[in-house]
């Protein structure tokens, strides 16, 4: 069973995973037993009652009450067990413990933002403490997304005008992949993030130093760091190749043609506006799909990104 479990399901890294997997295995096993039964019946009947002559006479068997009742009632009992079991797991999945640590999640096309209580914002990196319930309160800036951590067996859609939430309690430290599972456009499949599970102390240290470390960095270095940390590279290459957005290479200071025909020099103000209010000016040939970074990046960080972009000539 363990072998099968490893083959079929991702590692169990949250408190709810075991319960969900148990039901998964129950249904799989029962189904396989019944499927084998049905298959054997098909093969056996096909061979045993194969046509011997064109004049075969078959008996008239129109019904059999005992048989019919049993094959209605037994499956009914089985599915009711499955329903109750699934419901119990679901209640567990939706009842958030009171002491849960809260993280705000914002889904944007195509990145995940994680806001912590101290105001720090990480992009595509969720840091959480181990063995402590964590509650994610989620919303979207644009279209529907869905937040999914296979290792934790949790998933919830992220909606534009409402908050939704999910909770989990990680049982071991390490990294787990986060997917977006509600189709959200071009780079839907690149909307990945990683959940980092730390020991409680390590988590606290990380939370204290994560933002502070930036202060010591040189602006260009910080800019490069922010470009990677904020998932800019999902849509903007720095080597000249074309993705969903224009490449960063040679961007600064060049003349840009907008979709309304206007020509603009890409200066500091243009880049700042493109980060904070990205859909005001759209370069010809691209779609207005970039999310706003207002509230994610502060002035110092924007300056650093501009400084970094200047170096990509």
């Amino acid at each position: 069973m363990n072998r099968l479990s490893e083959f079929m399901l991702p590692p169990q890294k949250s408190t709810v995973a075991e319960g969900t997997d148990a039901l998964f295995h129950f249904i799989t096993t029962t189904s396989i037993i019944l499927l084998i039964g049905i298959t054997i019946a098909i093969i056996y009947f096909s061979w045993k009652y194969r046509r011997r002559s064109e004049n075969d006479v078959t008996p008239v068997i129109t019904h059999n009450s005992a048989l019919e009742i049993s094959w209605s009632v037994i499956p009914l009992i089985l599915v009711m067990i499955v329903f109750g079991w699934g419901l119990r797991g679901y209640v567990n999945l939706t009842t958030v413990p009171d002491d849960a640590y809260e993280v705000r999640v914002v889904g944007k096309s195509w990145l995940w933002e994680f806001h912590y209580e101290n105001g720090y914002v990480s992009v595509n990196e969720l840091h959480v403490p181990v063995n402590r319930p964590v509650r994610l309160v989620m919303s979207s800036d644009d279209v529907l997304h869905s937040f999914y951590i296979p290792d934790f067996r949790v998933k919830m859609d992220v909606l534009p005008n409402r908050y939704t939430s999910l909770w989990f309690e990680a049982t071991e430290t390490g990294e787990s992949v986060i997917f977006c599972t509600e189709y959200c456009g071009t780079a839907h499949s690149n909307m990945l993030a990683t959940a980092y599970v730390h020991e409680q102390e390590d988590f606290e240290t990380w939370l204290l130093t994560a933002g502070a470390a930036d202060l010591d960095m040189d602006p260009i270095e910080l800019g490069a760091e922010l470009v990677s940390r904020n998932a800019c590279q999902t849509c903007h290459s720095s080597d000249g190749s074309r993705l969903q957005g224009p490449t960063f290479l040679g961007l600064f200071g060049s003349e840009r043609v907008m979709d309304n025909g206007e020509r603009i020099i890409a200066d500091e103000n243009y880049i700042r506006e493109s980060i904070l209010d990205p859909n005001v000016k759209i370069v010809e040939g691209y779609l207005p799909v970039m999310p706003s970074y207002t509230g994610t990046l502060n002035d110092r960080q924007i300056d650093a990104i501009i400084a970094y972009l200047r170096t990509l000539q």
Partner: protein
Amino acid sequence: MATNEEIKNRKRIQVRRFVPEEFPEKHYLNEEKGLWAWLTTVDHKKIGLMYLASIAFFFFIAGVLALLLRTELLTPARSFMDADVYNQVFTLHGAIMIFFFLVPSVPAVLGNFVLPLQLGAKDVAFPRLNLASFYIYVIGALFTFYAIASGGVDTGWTFYTPYSATTGGNVMAMTFGIFILGFSSILTGINFMVTIHKMRSPGITWSKLPLNLWGLYATSIIQILATPVLAITLLLLTMERLLGIGIFDPAMGGDPVLYQHFFWFYSHPAVYIMIVPGFGIISEVISSFSRKTIFGYWAIALSSLAIAFIGFLVWGHHMFTAGQSSLANMVFSFLTFLVGIPTGIKIFNWLATMYKGSIDMKTPMIYAMVFLFLFTIGGFTGIMLGALSVDIHLHDTYYVVAHFHYVMMGGMVMAFLAGLHYWWPKMFGKMYSEFWARISAALLFVGFNMTFLPQFVMGSQGMPRRYFNYIDQFQPFHQFSTLGAYIMGVAFVLMFGYLLHSLLKGERAKANPWGSRALEWQTTSPAPLHNFEHTPVIVNGPYDYHKPMSEFQLGIANSHNGHHHHEEVSAKRTETEQA
């Protein structure tokens, strides 16, 4: 429901053995000639064949799209198409397969062809409406082609707001095309329902109605009750794009989850529009090739109606993670399990029908067995997805993709192929190569399982659906899956080959090559223009296999095939009509 008409008729009936002519010179295919006669025909059989050609065309297109998708997924990153192209391709694959192939396939092709034949009627109740529904389908298709040519659609076949309200491309033409298509589906449903109620030959009581017709009847009910809701949903979506009415678009203050309720109120019953007529075919085929009375006639008939009814109450199981209330999740989960029971009953009844039969493993029966196996897997994995806690993990992963392909392709397409091979001799009066048909069925079975079994594993490991790129660990599964898809492609090419050969050079089919007791086999192959030379009178049931064929009775009414009014009133007219 025996009408006065039937009772009146019965008095005039003289029951005689009725033996159809073999190899008729004149039949519905050659009675009227020329393209124009085909395009303006009101004959249900020809309309069925025109639908067959159309859906084969769309199946080909969407199948090629599927192969493109599978080819792209050979590598984790870009293989040969861009993400935007990929998104458009999977949208079109889904939308074309569902709206242009799966929904119309069994009712509009096989249903149209076989329904009046099984009722002993000369045509459906509203033949011109039937032709109109075909042209409505064509117009809907034209809109779709226009949508593809003018920017494409990348919303997924579900058109979820707000993405569908904001994305580029020509979503409006696409939704409008499907809106139009809905009317075609509704008209077919109305036609079938009225025909089954009002046009049954003398002797066909509700308990002698072939199970295929019970399936089509249940399907018609769903088409009639669900399709208008799709129409209003797509109309609102079109208005959302055109005017920004804001009912579904959160940017205007609306609620995207409400859109999902609207959409799935149609689209969940729609999967029963696709599969329930398949159940009907399987009942016919299994009984025919087992030469045995169907086991549990009423259980099968009523479970179709039960599925049609309960199918309306479970749409929310597509929305367990969508942000609907927990209460709704629980209710929907509970109701979902109830729909599994009538489905299970059918499978056991079919097995019991085979017990002590005289089983002939001809191609249609092979497809029926493939159906039983694959559809059972589809059903069990459906139970998995109905369980709340497990669904949270599996929702929107490849597990769901594999599940509905097992139900839709493993179930409905196999049933369709069973029906196609079963009624092929009646349609064209030709036999196909049994050898190549078996090879093709075997390839299809192997290819299908190779394609979709790995997807169950990928899905339960967490591979989300609609992904252009994926993480490396899934690559071996994807490659295996793609290989399976190619094998299926070969199987379909082979099928096209031997069916074409059958049309051109096939050996002529007898009136009743399978020794079936069903009414449609008691006329010539191919059938005459008005289906039967005389109005048939049903004495035995459609599954009376316990008597040898020589004792199987089928009466004819004394009068001339219902033309008697014309004779009484205007003899001249009758003559011209027969000329």
